[in-house]
């Protein structure tokens, strides 16, 4: 229904454009230079008045109609249905929706559900007719109103440009809206979590065993939500990744910037960038299928016990993925150091490596530190490699050969299961997400500040 309506609206807008254009020209007997603006602006004015209000109405309707229909169906439902818990009400509404969609039901449906489905179907029909009527009347009303305003000295271009400028401003505000949305949704759900589980247990306790009881008498349902082992797992895997990525990335950047010929750089740099472009799910598959078992067999030949989901396997592969981040950002900073510094050092008799270690790298240090911080932020937020290659058990261990779990793995496992949405178990995922968001935000802000404060301005 909605695609057809949008298509009809598009045609209406095109027609409106043509009508406005023709009207403007007809008022001046075809002499376009007598008009204030070019004829297309008059057409655009009418088209905007025809299309924009209707478009906003359709957008609002498609966002809110499902919720309003649910509310109306619930209002007509018998009192005992309305008195149930919110999860049962959601289930009731879902059954009603499925029946109204014509999905054959698997079990017996109660009379309340059937009545609700009939009502929902009627509401849907009524509301789509209502929408059609409203859109048609608003569109034609807008068209007529705009067309009547057209006169040879009507400043159509100014009006249209003002609307367009406003639209541009709204688009940029959308970026803020997204950030606000993220923060608000995370905080809201995390708030609900912290009303169930005290915040000091979450941040400081050492046992992570997120279970909640489905029934009051369920055994083994006491949950422990101490997230320290989970944070520790993230820290461990991130450190292993940095141990791999920072030396390799820095040395690679130094080599490409200082020693490599232009030809070598021309093909080596893009190849390194390819490492950044490979989807992380491929890295995860590689880590789980190849690196993990190889490490385990390697350890067995030495008599060591390496889990096939060891932190070392996941961390090493994540480190490889992060190499291009460190190397290309560092490369940029190193090449930005002016040659006069290098030549001064050569003039004093230093070798190339001594120049790099004692002159160039210290000069480029703020940028390098910033690139390392950004790489850490990327490693902390990485999901797919650890979901596929790291374990699920939250352990506080310093042994890289054991399996640990990370914040992102826990978020995925808590939400891709089938617990109901309000339980502490699923809300814990939002609390973890909030922590993740704050940590990466801090890392990025610190990286920015480091660059801003310590960057040398060379002439």
């Amino acid at each position: 229904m909605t695609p057809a309506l949008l298509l009809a609206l598009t045609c209406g807008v095109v027609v409106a454009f043509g009508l406005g254009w023709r009207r403007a020209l007809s008022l001046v007997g075809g002499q376009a230079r007598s008009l204030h603006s070019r004829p297309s602006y008059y057409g655009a004015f009418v088209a905007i008045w025809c299309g924009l209000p209707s478009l906003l109405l359709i957008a609002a309707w498609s966002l809110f109609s499902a919720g309003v229909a649910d509310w109306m169906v619930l209002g007509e439902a018998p009192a005992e249905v309305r008195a149930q818990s919110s999860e049962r009400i959601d289930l009731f509404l879902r059954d009603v929706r499925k029946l109204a969609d014509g999905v054959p039901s698997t079990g017996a449906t109660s009379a309340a559900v059937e009545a609700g489905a009939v009502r929902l179907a009627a509401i849907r029909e009524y509301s789509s007719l209502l929408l059609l009527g409203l859109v048609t009347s608003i569109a034609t009303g807008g068209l007529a109103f705009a067309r009547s305003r057209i006169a040879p000295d009507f400043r159509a271009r100014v009006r249209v440009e003002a609307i367009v400028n406003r639209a541009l401003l709204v688009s940029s505000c959308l970026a803020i809206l997204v950030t606000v949305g993220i923060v608000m949704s995370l905080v809201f759900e995390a708030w609900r979590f912290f009303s169930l589980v005290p915040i000091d247990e979450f941040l400081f306790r050492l046992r992570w065993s997120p279970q909640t009881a489905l029934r009051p008498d369920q055994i083994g349902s006491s949950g422990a939500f101490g997230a320290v082992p989970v944070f520790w797992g993230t820290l461990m895997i991130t450190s292993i990744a940095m141990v791999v990525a920072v030396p390799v990335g820095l040395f690679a950047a130094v080599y490409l910037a200082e020693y490599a010929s232009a030809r070598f750089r021309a093909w080596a740099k893009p190849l390194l960038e390819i490492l950044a472009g490979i989807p992380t799910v491929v890295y995860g598959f590689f880590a789980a299928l190849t690196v993990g078992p190889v490490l385990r067999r390697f350890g067995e030949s030495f008599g060591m016990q390496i889990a096939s989901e060891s932190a070392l396997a996941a961390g090493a592969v994540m480190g490889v993925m992060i190499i291009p981040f460190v190397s290309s950002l560092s490369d940029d900073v190193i090449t930005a150091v002016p040659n006069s510094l290098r030549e001064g050092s050569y003039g004093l008799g230093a070798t190339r490596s001594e120049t790099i270690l004692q002159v160039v790298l210290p000069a480029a240090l703020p940028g390098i530190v910033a690139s390392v911080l950004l790489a850490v932020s990327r490693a902390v937020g990485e999901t797919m490699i650890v979901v596929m290659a790291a374990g699920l058990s939250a352990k506080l261990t310093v042994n890289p050969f054991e399996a640990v779990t990370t914040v992102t793995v826990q978020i995925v496992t808590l939400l891709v299961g089938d617990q109901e949405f309000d339980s502490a178990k699923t809300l814990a995922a939002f609390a973890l997400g909030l922590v993740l968001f704050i940590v990466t935000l801090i890392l990025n802000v610190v990286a920015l500040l480091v660059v801003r404060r310590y960057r040398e301005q060379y002439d």
Partner: protein
Amino acid sequence: MEARRRKRHRAEVRFRAYGLAAVGFALLVLVLLLGTIVRDGAGAFWQYEVVLDIDFAPEVLGLGQDPAEAELGRGDFSRLVKEAVRKEFPEVKGRRDRRALRKLVSPGAVFELRDRLLADPALLGQTVSLRLPLDDQAQLFFKGFISAAVPEDARKLSDTQLGWLETLQERGQIVSGFNTRFLTGGDSREPELAGIWGAAVGSLLTLAVTLVLSFPIGVAAAVYLEEFSSRTRFTDFIEVNINNLAAVPSIVFGLLGLAVFLNFFGMPRSAPLVGGLVLSLMTLPTVIIASRSALAAVPPSIREAALGVGASPLQVVVHHVLPLALPGILTGTIIGMARALGETAPLLMIGMVAFIVDIPDGVTSPSTVLPVQIYLWADSPERAFVEKTSGAILVLLGFLVLMNLAAVLLRNRFESRW
């Protein structure tokens, strides 16, 4: 003095070697990664089928003598397969042996025979020689992954089953060919029938929604920030926000999509519409940043000349600046889309992780995307799915290579240097 000079020289040579070794290490891992994927995945594009004589006899199908066309679909097609296989090896007796023989052919053969008969009802009563897919274990045998040298209880095919397969091969009834089912079929629990087409269509729909949403809004925001806004605290705030959003982990966007789009707005779960919404929020900062640098690269002389002949500020941007910045904007957008194509984590959060068999037919029907399909198949314990997963990775990498190549070509051909 001389000794110290030589020591410094050796340190220099070592340092340079470390640098080269670092580059070499990174490239080695890249080659290893791609090499193992290609080695494991190449087999996914090749399939083995068995040629059997199928007798579409109405009595075997359990239909009457002259059934109506509507009845044809309800025949017992698995009996057709059983009879055909039994005809090949009439000496096999006993229910267990017969079942082992039947298991050499894929369960999907039953549905393919049914589709054939429904498409051409004249086949009823005829005997036709048809190519049917082999079971995934039999295909693994022909691809060399199951060897008779391994003890019998350590493999999925018994010695007698291997003997039957070899006999069929000697009789020339085993044919191999390009695996079209992999590229045109939807997901399946049977590895030999599993295909990526459903996931590919889902990816296409999701990317289409992402493009439609992020490109206009991103370019509009970039135009506003670059051309029309003055440097107020408000615009600084917007800029800081955009740079921060570019660095937020993708899973947080998935949480946003779950909390806002699914729970608050009640949008359909697993739909490309919601997936596209989430991914467009993710690619918006990339598009804005790339568009801003493309717009900034257009020299001010163009703008001033346009203003000089009487254009309004908006006309300057739309008629002069934007067309010149378009190659850079498109390059940035394509690269953003390529990144969105490979995203998995946020889509897991909004439910695109279900087992979907049908090909999605719209932006609101449940579907999955290619990276999530890879993730699901990687979890399957069956050996044959390793091949499929690697093959799907090759398809995904192929799409990414195409997109990045398009971006590079666009940049090289159309970008002007001022």
